[in-house]
């Protein structure tokens, strides 16, 4: 990239040489980075099919054992439930708020944006320190259930939900739609539910899938608030039974991959690239 070509050579030949050099550069970079990223994935598969003992044949035993681990199944159920509750909760909270702010209180728009992006700046492990006393109250009011985690997961999902809904709402003529609905006698909830929502389904799906993948991979809040979600149980299990855990990891990872690839198709359908400029702080 930085090598200087001699100015004496003709433009055509120097361009051809540059093209060759560029191709070589691309191949090398893609190959090296590709190995770095694919090797751990291959290792997951290899590790989870390893037999016990030296020279033992390949086995699928750890994969078959997955269903026979009650704690893993329970945690998976809990995390899936959390994912659904969080996704729905975040959308129910944010869709009306963003519509309302856009139409009625635009001067709050900056504040809402700031608050929604704030979770990117506060490290979860720092926030959990301040959340612990609040969760004492939550537990006191609603009982000690793992579903309580959804409260904070909605906050963790805010940046993603905000960005994708904001893009979605900016792409439609919101004011006209809502005013038309309202002048035909629709209440605000009706206008949002039957007019706005059908127009931003892609954005909502996008936000929902991102939230689901976030919740399925979440560890920090659950671990430090002492709830047994999927990741926490995976880690506990990993100390006792590496084979099964690695199989579970590979399976889960594959599932999340599919989810996020589906997502990239969903968001890719709407024309060229509406990617967020700043990604999450994990």
């Amino acid at each position, binding site marked *: 990239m930085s090598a200087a070509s001699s100015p004496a050579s003709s433009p055509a030949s120097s361009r051809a040489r540059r093209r060759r050099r560029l191709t070589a550069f691309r191949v090398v970079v893609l190959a090296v980075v590709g190995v770095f990223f694919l090797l751990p994935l291959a290792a997951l598969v290899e590790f989870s099919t390893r037999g016990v003992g030296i020279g033992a044949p390949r086995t699928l035993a750890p994969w078959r054992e997955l269903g026979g681990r009650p704690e893993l199944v329970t945690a998976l159920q809990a995390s899936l439930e959390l994912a659904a509750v969080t996704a729905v909760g975040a959308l129910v909270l944010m869709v009306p708020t963003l519509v309302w702010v856009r139409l009625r209180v635009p001067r709050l728009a900056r504040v809402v944006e700031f608050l929604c992006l704030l979770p990117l700046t506060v490290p979860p492990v720092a926030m959990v320190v301040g959340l612990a006393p609040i969760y004492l109250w939550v537990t006191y009011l609603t009982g000690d259930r793992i579903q309580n985690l959804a409260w904070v997961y909605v*906050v963790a999902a805010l940046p993603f939900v905000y960005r994708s809904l904001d893009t979605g709402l900016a792409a439609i003529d919101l004011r006209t739609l809502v005013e038309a609905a309202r002048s035909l006698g629709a209440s605000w909830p009706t206008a949002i539910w039957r007019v706005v929502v059908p127009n931003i389904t892609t954005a909502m799906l996008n936000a929902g899938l991102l939230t689901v993948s976030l919740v399925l991979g979440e560890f920090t809040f659950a671990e430090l608030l002492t709830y047994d979600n999927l990741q926490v149980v995976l880690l506990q299990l990993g100390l006792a039974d590496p084979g099964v*855990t690695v199989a579970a990891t590979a399976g889960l990872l594959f599932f999340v991959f599919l989810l996020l*690839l589906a997502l990239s198709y969903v968001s890719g359908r709407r024309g060229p690239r509406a990617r967020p400029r700043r990604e999450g702080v994990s």
Partner: protein
Amino acid sequence: MTTTDEQLGGRPTRGGRRFSLSWLGSVPFLAYVSIFLVLPTGIVVVEAFGDGAGRPTLANLTELGEDYLRSAFVNSLELSLTSSVIGAVIGALLSYAVVTGRPDGLLRRSVTSLCGVFAQFGGVMLAFAFIATVGPEGLLTALLADAGWKTGGAWLFTLDGLTVVYLYFQIPLMVLVFTPALEGLRPQWREATESLGGTTWDYWRHVAGPILLPPFLGSLLLLFANAFSAFATAAALISQGGVIVPLQIRQALTSEVVLGRENVAKALALGMIVVVAVVMALQALLQRRTSRWLRGSTR
């Protein structure tokens, strides 16, 4: 969902606007965010300056000067710096390799979506993937041992190991945030350089370099904050002790033995928030500088 007209602001959009009340519609959001985002952050900030009984004190913050906590901060900064610099450089090279391909090509599409996946992929699963690769029983460890190079696999659980593991989400994040800047470079600029007799080196030194520097540094800062706040991956790899600040917080939160540790946790958390806030503020400044040249051209 089709409730009556008297719900939330059930008055005509035009006419008779009692403007002062319209902010009520945002109350649920503001209340929610206050309880679960602003309040916890506030608790950390305020109680970092208090003793257990609510009296103001600086004792928690002076505790941060203790050797074991100071070294945790130094380690955290070092880990974040190394992994963000390496991640930014490799990520920038990768995104250049991708951007120079066909815009609608399969490679470009798949690398972009895979980066979206990998940038999110941290924590326990990532830790297991690396344990299966370069851990004591790992695939690569075994292959290298066959080739006569015994690594033992224990290095994975040190700071160096963490740095390598962090690259797995740092590089993709860099690709995601830096690609738009590269896409903003217009081919005309290069042609202009050439028609003025400039070489490739001149182009990178005087045109592309200066334009890309602010977005590169901005992305670097974002990666730094990302690594600095990461907890799950480190927690899964290192089950005991507090090499880096997040692990010290875990220790302070979970230790039942010594009383008053929660306040040290708050001081540590405050330290993290301050570091990340400063980094992100700088990042926002650079972002503003970036948009001067590259806005509108990112297509």
